């Protein structure tokens, strides 16, 4: 019969580690009580089986995987802050694109489009002395002569229409000077014309354009030189008249 004493004895058996020596009272009780003896045997057997489970080894690549995991963890810490930075960069990029687009639209809006002004070359003449372009009547298309090239504008831009009503200043000016190249007709003494400079002008060719809103633009064409040529000392079968 299980008594209160059996409860105490079994508790002591339960709490002690396997192999530990029981107290004298437990030993004495186990000798007398068959139920507690059976409990003790089964309990010991059970604990032996549970204890035989032992330790399971970690896999061989445990350290390697752990190191990789730790490296990944540290990357995640960085990537945790990356979305915020990425959003900021995206907003900044959008602002840059918007500002660039606005500047492009503004420049296109203020500039005459190619379809509104078509330049046609009508004739080519010899260089003429500088001539100031004057304002044109409103019902007549402006006609500009630039370095021997006549430029006629077909149609007018919005800015030009506004300027034609109340012209404040000339829309375009010519400012260039040129000199005729020295004419050599082959009748001068040979020694005096061994070499000839063939410059079309002594100054650079400059054109200043003004859209009427204070936006001026100057185009400068540098002096063109063709170098020099030398006359043949003696005539030959290909150049009987001592041409160069």
């Amino acid at each position, binding site marked *: 019969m299980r008594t209160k004493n059996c409860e105490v004895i079994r508790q002591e058996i339960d709490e002690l580690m396997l192999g530990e020596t029981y107290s004298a009272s437990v030993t004495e009780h186990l000798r007398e009580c068959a139920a507690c003896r059976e409990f003790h045997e089964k309990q010991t057997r059970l604990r032996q089986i*549970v204890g035989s489970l032992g*330790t399971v080894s970690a896999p061989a690549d445990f350290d390697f995987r752990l190191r990789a995991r730790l490296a990944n963890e540290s990357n995640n810490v960085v990537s945790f802050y990356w979305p915020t930075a990425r959003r900021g960069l995206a907003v900044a990029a959008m602002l840059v694109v918007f500002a660039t687009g606005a500047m492009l639209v503004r420049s296109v809006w203020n500039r005459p489009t190619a379809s509104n002004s078509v330049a046609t070359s009508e004739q080519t003449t010899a260089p003429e002395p500088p001539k100031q372009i004057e304002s044109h009547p409103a019902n007549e298309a402006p006609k500009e002569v630039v370095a021997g090239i006549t430029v006629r504008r077909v149609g007018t831009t919005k800015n030009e229409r506004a300027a034609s009503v109340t012209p404040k200043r000339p829309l375009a000016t010519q400012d260039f000077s040129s000199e005729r190249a020295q004419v050599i007709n082959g009748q001068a003494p040979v020694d005096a014309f061994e070499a000839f400079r063939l410059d079309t002008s002594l100054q650079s060719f400059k054109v200043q354009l003004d859209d009427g809103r204070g936006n001026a633009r100057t185009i400068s064409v540098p002096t063109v030189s063709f170098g020099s040529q030398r006359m043949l000392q003696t005539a030959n079968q290909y150049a009987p008249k001592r041409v160069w």
Partner: protein
Amino acid sequence: MNTLTTIEELGFAPALQQDVLEDTTSDHALLEATRTGDQDAFAELVSRYRNQITSYIYRMTNDYDGAVDLAQETFVRVYRAADRYQRSYAFSTYIYRIATNLAISELRKRKRRKLVSLTGFFQPSDGAEPQELNPPDGRPLQDLELVDTERRNAVQRAIGTLPEKYRAPLILRDVDGRSYDEIARILETSEGTVKSRISRARGFLREKMRAYL
């Protein structure tokens, strides 16, 4: 006044050197070194505890791959929390507490997902005690090793059916051989509670393992 030039001139030099040697190889010292960025110190800690922690979590979850994963997570947490570690108790207690929490968390996740191990016990729908799928054969077996293996598998499965509050103290006591005091610290409960739970756990196991005892 004479100036001491070497540590040997002090009478307790050998003892001091031994203390320093032990101190630099203790778990606390290794974690302290880990805190300062010493990777070798952390590797030494891992090598000391990887098998114990993996085995403990495996006994808790009965899933080796999951146990390895959780063991790694345990070390990751130790590494990350190295700055916050306090030397108020043993490092083994500290790391086992982390492992226990992870294992219990995993068991609760499984319960929510209603995952049932195919190698475990089938739970009867009428609420009766779970019965083992393959009861032991009463005929004499030729291979004692085979019997032992089958017995260990049976007890592992039986442990897997224990409620988690009984499972952890039983494993820590009967498999790992830890003291009641340490188990109480790991599980953050009293020693009396630990003893009571272990006793209850063994009672459950005796019932389930009746055929093997």
